[in-house]
């Protein structure tokens, strides 16, 4: 029972650490990493994709959070 509780807490911690309150951010990071790997694999410049993905997903996520917050108030 204690082991199961510990295991559950461990899983919850990492899910919270990686996904947090917006799963689309983690999904975008994974997609951007895959895209970067793909670009590097075909010998194209790949450095720009991760920063661009960060800026886009931050903007989308902040906008979504602001609108959700305004609805809840």
């Amino acid at each position: 029972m204690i082991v199961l509780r510990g295991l559950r807490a461990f899983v919850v911690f990492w899910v919270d650490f990686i996904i947090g309150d917006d799963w689309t951010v983690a999904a975008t990071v994974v997609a951007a990493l895959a895209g970067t790997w793909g670009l590097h694999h075909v010998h194209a410049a790949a450095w720009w994709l991760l920063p661009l993905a960060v800026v886009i997903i931050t903007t989308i996520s902040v906008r979504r959070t602001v609108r959700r917050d305004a609805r809840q108030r």
Partner: protein
Amino acid sequence: MNGAVLVSTFFAAAIEVIEMVAIVVSVGVARSWRASLVGAAGGLLVLTVLVAVLGTALRDVPLRPVRLVVGALLLVFGLQWFRKGVFRVARDGWSVGQGDEDVDPADVGPDRFDWTGFVLSFKGVSLEGLEVAVIVVAFGTAAHAVGSAVIGAAGAVLVLGLVGATTYRLVARIPRRALQLFVGAMLTTFGTFWSGQGLSVRWPGDELSLAWLAAGYVAVGLLLIPQARRWRDQAGARLGGEHLAGGAVR
């Protein structure tokens, strides 16, 4: 004593140690000093064991997968803080939350050990420490002067550790909302850079790209704050209009 090896190891290690100290100080100020220092100690312990077990075989440790995993984890967590920082500064203003360990109850429960802070510091110290160890082994064995390389790297850790210890109070003066935004931008910067390195990306300017990445992310965060206020006002006006329209129909 090989002076050239000592000096070059000092400067090569200093770049990695700056990143290590920046993470430990930021996590300590923004979340919990206890968790940050325990995490840093844990990272050093793992590193010591690795160095003791592997010795000069450290040169053969594949750093790319380690950078990719640590970088990706820092990136997703840094992004959480970054966007929360932008959102909270836009909502509450810059001056909310000033103090050494004024941790948001939404982030860490009261009287609980901050495992997130621990993991952040642990990863930062173990990855950067591993890179310092590889530098020591590479520089030291190439010139047959491992002792000089060790002294150079230890000097970098000592000097920059002291800089971190003497300047953390300045960082602690920054209000928590602002700190969350800037630390989030910094963790996102390291996460972007390391995960890119893990995928063999060639960053323009190599390590210098940390500076332009950080500047770019902070600029985006600062631009997003007034924009988030406009989105909030637009959403409020729309919802107000819907309420009025609903009342008129009734």
